[in-house]
């Protein structure tokens, strides 16, 4: 039994090359859309999650080191910067500060000081720490002794490769790797953690570029009901040697860069959308021209305007579905395969969740459908409004 659906499918098969070109074009458009959306959402989500997972309301860094700190904490970059330890007490005295802990960042140089690949070594205060402990989940149920270390989840990968030995030389001191941290989704994943007790021996060895009494960052928790931004502003006003970042402001510089990238993507996708609409319009105009006589015959046989619209909408949607599905699949595959070739993405700790990937693919698929319908709208309206006799007489 012939139906509007089977009739539409036969019409689509009528010119396979032309249908193929249209499907390919839609697939390309949807791929590009999925890739762009994935890129922007991954950076946005990663920064938001990383700042949430750090567990601190405010981060205090040396003046001028705000960007470097963001790069360490959000992008896994290896940087060091120092300020005087005495700032800890000055920060503690600010009203609204409930708890704080400090960390010191050291950079290993393979062959010169250390037996591990270039890594970030983080010395932390085990007594006051609230940044590292939540990710240990009881794996190391005691304090780290001198000469003991734990590694971030990404660095643990290096251990499996044999790049980091179970016993490694760090700044002239032998360290035993006790275990790995759970994945934090922050820059901490690529670091190696040691207790602050080791700093004296490291400094004595002289292979680390740090002086006694220096630290890199202070993480601050504010009292309940206190606005972190106000406390951060107070810290900056009181302590001229320090810059601060409130949790909501972490990643601002990256987000500002991303905003420009998003604008470029948006403009490119807008132009691509217009191009896709124009392509669909031109192909469906040609189809409408070729088949106006057939439409006239169908109208004479009793087809209503709605039958004609439905027939062509089914054809458009079938093409959109094919192109959209292919585009969503390829776009997702490209994103996963090529994502890490972009430095902005490579250094981010968080990848997109499956649900987010599915959402982006579905959005790309849907927008592909809308583009197809928008392009085919005018030719379909023209066919719908044809006077049957005029259409029949058209050659």
């Amino acid at each position, binding site marked *: *039994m*012939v*139906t*509007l659906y089977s*009739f539409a499918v*036969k*019409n689509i*098969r*009528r010119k396979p090359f032309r249908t193929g070109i249209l499907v390919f074009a839609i697939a390309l458009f949807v791929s590009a859309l999925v890739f762009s959306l994935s890129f922007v959402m991954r950076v946005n989500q990663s920064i938001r999650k990383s700042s949430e997972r750090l567990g601190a309301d405010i981060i205090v860094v040396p003046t001028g080191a705000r960007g470097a700190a963001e790069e360490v904490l959000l992008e896994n970059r290896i940087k060091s910067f120092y300020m005087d330890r005495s700032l800890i007490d000055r920060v503690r005295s600010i009203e609204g500060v409930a708890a704080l802990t400090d960390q010191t960042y050291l950079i290993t140089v393979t062959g010169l000081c250390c037996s591990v690949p270039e890594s970030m070594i983080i010395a932390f205060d085990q007594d006051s720490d609230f940044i590292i402990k939540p990710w240990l989940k009881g794996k190391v149920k005691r304090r780290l002794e001198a000469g003991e270390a734990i590694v971030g989840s990404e660095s643990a990968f290096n251990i499996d490769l044999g790049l980091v030995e179970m016993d490694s030389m760090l700044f002239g001191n032998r360290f035993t790797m006790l275990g790995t941290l759970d994945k934090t989704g922050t820059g901490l994943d690529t670091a190696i953690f040691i207790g602050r007790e080791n700093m004296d021996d490291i400094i004595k060895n002289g292979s680390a570029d740090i002086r006694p009494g220096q630290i890199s960052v202070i993480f601050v928790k504010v009292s309940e009901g206190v606005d972190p931004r106000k406390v951060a502003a107070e810290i900056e006003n009181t302590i001229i040697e320090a810059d601060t970042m409130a949790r909501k402001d972490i990643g601002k510089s990256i987000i500002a860069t991303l905003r420009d990238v998003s604008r470029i993507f948006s403009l490119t996708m807008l132009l691509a959308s217009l191009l896709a609409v124009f392509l669909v319009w031109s192909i469906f105009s040609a189809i409408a021209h070729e088949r106006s006589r*057939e439409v*006239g*015959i*169908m*109208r*004479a*046989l*009793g*087809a*209503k*305007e*709605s*039958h004609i619209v439905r027939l062509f909408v089914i054809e458009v949607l079938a093409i959109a579905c094919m192109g959209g599905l292919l585009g969503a699949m390829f776009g997702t595959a490209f994103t996963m395969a090529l994502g890490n070739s972009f430095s902005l993405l490579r250094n981010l700790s968080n990848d997109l969740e499956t649900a987010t990937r599915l959402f982006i693919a579905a959005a790309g698929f849907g927008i592909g459908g809308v583009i197809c319908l928008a392009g085919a709208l005018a030719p379909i309206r023209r066919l719908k409004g044809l*006077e*049957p*006799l005029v259409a*029949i007489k058209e050659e």
Partner: protein
Amino acid sequence: MPQLELRSITKTYETDGDSLRAVADVSLDVEAGEFVSIVGHSGSGKTTLLSLIGGIVRPSSGRILFEGKDLAGLSSDRIAEYRAVKIGFMFQFASLLPVLTVKENLLLPVVFGPHAGWSKEKKAEELLAMVGLADKSSAYPSQLSGGQQRRVAIARAFMNEPALILADEPTGDLDEETEMDMMRFFQSMNKNAKTTFIMVTHNTDLARLTQRRLRMHRGSLESENSSGR
């Protein structure tokens, strides 16, 4: 009451400031079950008249009543329903859709009719057998000769069991023998199914076989004569 009533129908086409009167003040009554033929020169307005009766063109003035209902009062959808249910069209050219098989072409009016979704394959096969193409149901129009395509289009016009067949030179591409076969088929449908026929033809021999002969000249309709079949 006549099945079809045309009251002072005029159709004027406006093109580039010129106006062409294709049908001029035509009035006609056709009774249910009548077989009417219309002869006339090319351009005399025959096809336009059939199109007006079939509702695929709206008249510039005048009224067309089918079974007492004025077509002018019907919306586009109601006119389409009227064509799907009451009218069977035969065009003066091959009018099959190339992507559909012969049987699917026959079933196409069912898709647009009130019984969409009903299986009418048996009916299609019967009609194909009646026009001598039982073995061609799976063929595509491009695999048929012009005459065979014409016979498929003839069979298609009867798919929804219409009350009125509008046939525009339906046997134009057929050889004499097949033309007569088709004419006998029309006559049997006219007699047995009580289907009304209005047939435009150049063939005066065929016209003589019809119940009432009309002549169209410069848009006007004149009665030639009336005779029994």
